[in-house]
């Protein structure tokens, strides 16, 4: 019985898929299906982003001896929808003498690159839109496009605070991209594949990669979390929007929906970083120690989401505990400490694999 219930969404999907192919020529049908999947993902992640905002606010409240949003709907669950409606209906104000074209383009760079990134996620065995053999590479490549949007937005705003924020963003993202890439590379040595679904499958037999690669994997995870937090411009690396220094940084002059794009992208980026961490280190949608392997109806996507939420909680914990770094300290941390450590770590991992010391 349960088996049937859990398979209803999948059944619906395949029914719709078959129906579209039966009424249309093949090319049109495949395009339609792709568009439908894209729309579904868009809706899913708009909602996911919004509820991450709510989660952030609730977590912040717990850290700060407050209650957090609790007026709109039960436990404040509709607060974030109310916020979204407010942002959508707000007037789009802008500064004098802006570069109109670039100013309007910037938010789309950020949000589109983010949304492309999520297409390759392996939520579970069946739930992956786009399983390509260079999935991990694709994710890194796409997620680094977002910084162009921030740079362009800060530049076009005709605001000095925005400009400083944008320049800091360029500095920060370019630096920390290296660490993200290298720590991922360390793990790729272990998996031998870039395809996300295969990376997860590797861990089915050998245990989670963070255990398989013992010490270098743990170091890689720590570096990945630091660099990933910096990549998403979150505290303690939120120099880009450092509110006590720059007002709101690069999005000072954005309002309404355009601001919402930046805002939402930040949260979805956090989701992306957490997902990469889960896939690379914590076995993706596999259950810990195979505890639900025998239960066929158990949705594997649940494990994926639980792990992602734990990592996201960790990132929120950083944000509400640490003060912000200064810009030169940020660069010192990356170029003088993380990068050499990362390179050494990569070598150690290579030696471990060469000597066949993996667990």
């Amino acid at each position, binding site marked *: 019985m349960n088996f049937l219930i859990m398979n209803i969404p999948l059944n619906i999907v395949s029914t719709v898929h078959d129906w579209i192919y039966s009424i249309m020529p093949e090319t049109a049908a495949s395009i339609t299906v792709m568009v439908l999947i894209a729309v579904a993902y868009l809706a899913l992640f708009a909602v996911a982003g919004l509820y991450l905002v709510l989660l952030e606010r609730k977590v*912040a409240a717990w*850290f*700060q*001896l*407050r209650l957090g949003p609790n007026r709109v709907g039960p436990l404040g669950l509709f607060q974030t929808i109310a916020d979204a409606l407010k942002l959508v209906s707000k007037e789009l104000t802008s500064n004098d003498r802006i570069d109109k074209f670039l100013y309007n383009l910037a938010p789309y760079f950020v949000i589109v690159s983010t949304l492309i990134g999520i297409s390759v996620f392996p939520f579970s065995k069946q739930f992956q839109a786009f399983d390509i053999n260079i999935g991990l590479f694709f994710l890194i490549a796409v997620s680094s496009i977002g910084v162009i949007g921030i740079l362009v937005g800060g530049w076009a705003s005709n605001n*000095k*605070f925005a400009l*400083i924020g944008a320049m800091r963003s360029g500095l920060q993202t370019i630096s920390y991209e290296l660490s993200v890439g290298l720590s991922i590379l360390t793990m790729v040595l272990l998996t031998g594949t870039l395809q996300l679904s295969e990376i997860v499958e590797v861990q089915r037999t050998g245990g989670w990669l963070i255990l398989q690669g013992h010490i270098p994997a743990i170091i890689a995870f720590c570096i990945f979390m630091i660099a990933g937090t910096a990549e998403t411009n979150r*505290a*303690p690396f*939120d*120099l880009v929007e*450092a*509110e*006590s*220094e*720059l*007002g709101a940084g690069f999005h000072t002059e954005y309002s309404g929906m355009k601001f919402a794009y930046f805002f939402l992208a930040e949260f979805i980026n956090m989701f992306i970083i957490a997902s990469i961490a889960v896939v690379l280190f914590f076995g993706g949608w596999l259950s810990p120690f195979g505890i639900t392997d025998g239960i066929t109806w158990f949705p594997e996507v649940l494990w994926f989401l639980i792990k992602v939420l734990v990592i996201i909680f960790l990132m929120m914990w950083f944000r*509400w*505990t*640490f*003060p*912000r*770094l*200064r*810009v*030169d*300290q940020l660069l010192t941390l990356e170029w003088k400490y993380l990068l050499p450590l990362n390179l050494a770590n990569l070598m150690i991992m290579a030696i471990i694999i060469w000597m066949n010391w993996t667990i």
Partner: protein
Amino acid sequence: MTDQEIKNKIKTEEYFVNMGPQHPAAHGVLRLLLTIDGEIIKNVEPDLGYIHRSIEKMCERDSYQQIVHLTDRMDYLSSNINNEAVCLAVEKALEIEVSDRVKVIRTIVSELTRIASHCLWWGVMGMDLGALTTYFYAFRDRELINDIFEETCGARLTMNYNAPGGLMYDIHPNFVKRTKDFIKHFKTKIPEYDRLLTGNVIFQKRTKGVGILTKEDAISYGVSGPVARGSGFASDVRKHHPYSAYDRVDFKEVLLTEGDTFARYQVRIMELWESISIIEQLIDNIPEGSVKEPTKAVIKLPKGEYYQRVEAARGELGVYINSTGAKNPYRVKFRSPGFSNLSVLNHIAKGSKIADLVATMASFDFVIPDIDR
């Protein structure tokens, strides 16, 4: 190419940024005209006057009892201490000796005000450096002091508790118990503050060696309060020119010599402990006596000039009254700590980064109405 040649080839320009009057780090309406080269600050020019209410001019119009109420609105975080300063000046002129009870109560209330003020500063300091959580921890404890004041003075921010000749009315019966409870509670919370912020590596990196103010500069710019004491300038009025009950309590003047932002931070944290110790020494034996010496309904000060200095939460507050013998003063001047402290900002912020300026400003603990009056 050498570094210099490269620098000559790349043409850069300095630019102006208006930091304020609406800026999160200004804590009010302070406007700083920054000249910036990249992230490096070349010049800081404070522009004042956005919250000028001509309090000193209004004092010339009002009677001496009314002046006390105006001083609440200067440094609103140490309103009790401001009130006390004016009352002490008027009492000095009238040669009124207030009872011991008044002296002790004034001291306790002033120290509670200082703790409340330093609490708020601690929260805001964290916030300026990007650690938003500190704000709420500080407000949790400050709230308890506000409750004590609400019960005794009827107000939470602008107390008006002092009056020339004593106090407006006696303390509430719960005052002693609640103050003791608060002290007991707060003693467990300062170590929590330390765990949250003081020991944090990022915090120390952001504050140590940043915004260094030498002792010589502190003296020549007339800097006072915790800022001066962080540079080793012994300027505590409570210690060197005791007023009210400060001569009968035993407390240390906190002095550090580093002169950087972290030293100023530590001075304030240690001052919290000293304030607690002062309150503890006094709270158990508040002497009996009248809380208000009789004064005439219309106070007329004898002709002459009168000056009284007190240690407010931000430094030395001076009250100068010039009287012609009329029912209102001829001229009143307040020497506010914030104004002198602000004057040194350009000197120490030059050459640092924007983030350093924010950290330095946070450690100076500016209250803009105190600067502008």
